[in-house]
C-alpha cells in the first residue's frame, strides 16, 4: 500500500484526513481513487506537484507506484 500525504488545505475536503494508504499501480490510478473518495479533490490535485519516492513530478501521470511508495502532494514550484 502506497503511503499518501496530502497538503493541509485538503483537510477540509477529506474530513481532516491528510495521511492515508492506498493500493494503486500508478499515479493515474491513485489520483482516480482519491477523487472517487473525495470528488472535491479533483480540481485541487491538479494544482499540486507530487513527489513519488523522493522524485518530484510537476505533472505526474503514468508514473508507477510500488507497494511501499511514499507519495507527497505539494505546491508547484517554478522560480525566476
Amino acid at each position, binding site marked *: 500500500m502506497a503511503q499518501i500525504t496530502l497538503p493541509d488545505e485538503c483537510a477540509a475536503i477529506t474530513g481532516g484526513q491528510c495521511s492515508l494508504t492506498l493500493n494503486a499501480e500508478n499515479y493515474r490510478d491513485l489520483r482516480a481513487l482519491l477523487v472517487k473518495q473525495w470528488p472535491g479533490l479533483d480540481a485541487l490535485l491538479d494544482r499540486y506537484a507530487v513527489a513519488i519516492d523522493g522524485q518530484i513530478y510537476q505533472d505526474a501521470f503514468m508514473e508507477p507506484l510500488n507497494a511501499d511508495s511514499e507519495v507527497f502532494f*505539494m505546491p508547484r*514550484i517554478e*522560480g*525566476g
Partner: protein
Amino acid sequence: MAEAVDYKQIGSRPVRPDGLDKVTGRAQFGADTVLPNMIHGKVLRSPHAHAKIKSIDVSGALALPGVFAAISGADFPGGGIEGEVGGEGGGTLSDVAKNVMARDKVLYHGHTVAAVAAATPMIAEAALAAIKVEYEPLSPVLDVLHAMESDAPLVDENNYTKLPEKPENPSNVANQGRLERGNMEEGFAAADVVVEREFQCPMTHQGYIEPQACVASIDENGRGTVWCSTQGHFEFRAATSKILGKDLADLKIVPMEIGGGFGGKTVVYLEPLAVMLSEKSGRPVKMAMSREEVFRATGPASASVARVKVGAKRDGTITAAQAWVAYEAGAFAGAPYMPGAMAVFAPYELENFLVETFDVLVNKPKVAAYRAPGAPQSMHAFECALDEIAQLIDMDPIDLRLHNAADEGTQASYGPKFPPIGFKACLQAAKDHPNYQAPVPEGAGRGVAAGFWFNVGMQSSAEVHINENGTVMVIEGSPDIGGSRASMCLMAAETLGVEYDKVRAQVADTESTGFCNVTGGSRTTFATGMAVTRACEDVIAECKKRAAMTWGLDEDQVEWEDGQAIPGPGVNADVKPLSLADLAGKAAKTGGPIQGRASLNAQGAGASFSVNFGDLRVDQETGKVDVLSYTAVQDAGKAIHPSYVEGQMQGGAAQGLGWALNEEYIFSADGVLENAGFLDYRIPVCSDLPMIDTAIVEVANPSHPYGVRGVGETPIVAPLAVAANAVSRSLDMRICKLPLSPPNLLEAIDGE
C-alpha cells in the same frame, strides 16, 4: 550515466556563441526592432497609490495631429480570464490583465490607466497629457504588518483569505501556508539555548539592465508578430492572446536577445498594449519602458517580515525551529509565500518545526519572481538565527550546519525524502576552502550561510538538424539569458561525439519550434538540455540506420562511437567508419536530410544547495560596509560549462549582496516610490565588491543524462544572511533589518 572523466566536451569552457555580438553591439535586443511606418506607444500611469477611477476621457489625445490610437481599461475584454502565469508571484491571468491596464481602481503609484500610439515619442507624450482622468483618492496601505490588521484599508474589497472555509470578512491576506512536523513544545523544552528574533527584508528590484521593450505589428485580420524581451515567448503568447481575447495561433512572438530577467521578465506588461495599439492604428507600434517606469510598474521582490525562533542543544542539535513570515504581494495576490515556507528549513534534518507564511496585498507594484523567489527572505531569517545559536554554544557555524545537515534519505521539511544531494559536500568544501582557513581580517566579521532551491523541469522541445557537411544545428525555444546556447552546443557535441565548433544553436520563435516553458526556475540547462540530448540520440539512431543501409547490415549491428558509425563487436564487415559528415553528405541517397527531435516534460530536477561565506567590515563612523572577501560554494550536479556556472554563482552573490547592503524601495507616506532610478536605488557596481571566489561541487543528479542540477536560483539565497552575520559579528550586535545601509547601521550603532 557516463563518468565525468569520459566527457570530451562537457566541462570545457568555450566562448559563448552570442558573446561577440553582445559585446560589440550587434546583438538585437527588445527595443532594437525597427519596421516601416512604425509609431511609438506610451503609457499614462496613476499619480495615486490607491484611488477609484471615476472617468477617463482619451478624446483630447485622439484629437492631436500625429496620434493614431488611444486606449484605456474600457477597451479590454471584461470578465475573468482563466489561467495562471509562470513564475512564483505570477498570479492569475485575470489579475495580470488588470495589472497591464487598470479598470475601476488604481492600486499603486505607476499603475497603467491609458496608453497611446503616435508618430513620435514626443507627440505620444503630449497625447498622454491630453488624457483626462478623474480619480477619487483612497488611503493606501503600504506596510505588510499594517496591511494584516483588521482595520487596515483594503486593497481589494473582494479579497477573502483562501482558506478551507471562507472567512466572514475580506482582508488584505490573500493566501497563507503552513508546514508542521513533530511537537514544538517538547522541542523547545529540550533546548539548551533558544534564539528568537524578528527580521525584515526590503522590497528590491531584479535590476536587469535592459528595460521591458517590444514592437507589435498586427494586420487588419488581427494577426501579427511581437518582437520582445522575454524569458518565455510561448507564455507571453498565451498571456497576451488571453488578455486580448485572441486565438493564440494569431500571434507570433519573436524572442529578442535579453538583457537580464532574473524572473522579472516572466510576466507581460507592454505586449498586450502594443498589440491593441497596433491593431487600432494599423501600424507597427514600439513600446519601451524608461528606467523609472521599470522601477515603478514592473514586479520587484517581496518585502518581508519574518519572526523566527530556534532551539538547540549544546552539542549543536536543533531541537525545534519556528518561522512566521509575511510577504508583501503588491497590488495583486501572488507573493512567493509557499516556496518561502518550503525552503526555510530545507537544508536541515529537523524533528520539530512549524512554518506559517502569508501572501499580503499592499498598494505597491505587483511582485514578480526574482531568483529563488521567497527563499532569500525566509532563509535570511533562519540562517541569521542559526549563526546566533552557533555563537551562543561557541561552535563553528559550518560545524553547526554539518551537525544538522540534510542528506540523501532525509525527509525534507516540505515532504519527500531527498534523493542524492550535495549539501554536506558543499559544507565540507567550504570548511576546507583556503579562504575559510585564513584568519578573519582585523576589525571584520565572517558570515556563513546556506542557500537552497528546489529546481524544476517542465516542458521543453528541441530539434537537431545535420547539415550536409556534417555540422550540427540545434533549434530550441529557451531564451538564452545565462549562456545556455553554449551549454546546449556542448551537450549536443558530447552526445553526438563531434567537436564543439561543429555545433550551432538557435533560439526559435513560437512558430519555428515546439513549446518551451520559460527560461526560469533553473530549468533550462536541465530540461532543454535533456531535450537536446534526446534529439541528438534520435539523430544517432537515424545515423545507425543509414549506416546499416549503406553496409548491408542490420541496424542492431551498428554502433555509434566518437561521432562515427562503426560495425558492432563481432560483426564481420570490412567497412570504413562513417562520420556524421559522411552520412549527411550521402543523405539524399539514404532517405533525405537527417534530423532528430524531442519534446518532453522533464521530471527529476535535482535540488541545489549552496554554502557562502564572506568577510565584511563596517566603518563605525560612516556606517559604510566593505566586502573584503566572498566565497560561494554550490552543487551544480555537473557543470556543463563551468565558467557560466561560476558566472551564475558570482552574479547571484552580487545581487544578494546588493539586497543585503543597500538596495531598497523607499516609499513616501502616500505611496510614491522615491528612488526610481539607479542613482538613488543603489545596486552594487564593480568597485563595491571583491572578486567572488567560487567552488563548484558536483554531486550528480541521477535524473539527468549528464547529472545536471539547475544553478541559477540558489546563488542569491545565502548572501543576505552572510552579510548580516558578518556585520553582526563585526559589530558584536545582532542586526536584523536589511539593508545594512549606512543610515540603518548608524541608527543601530547609535542605539547601542
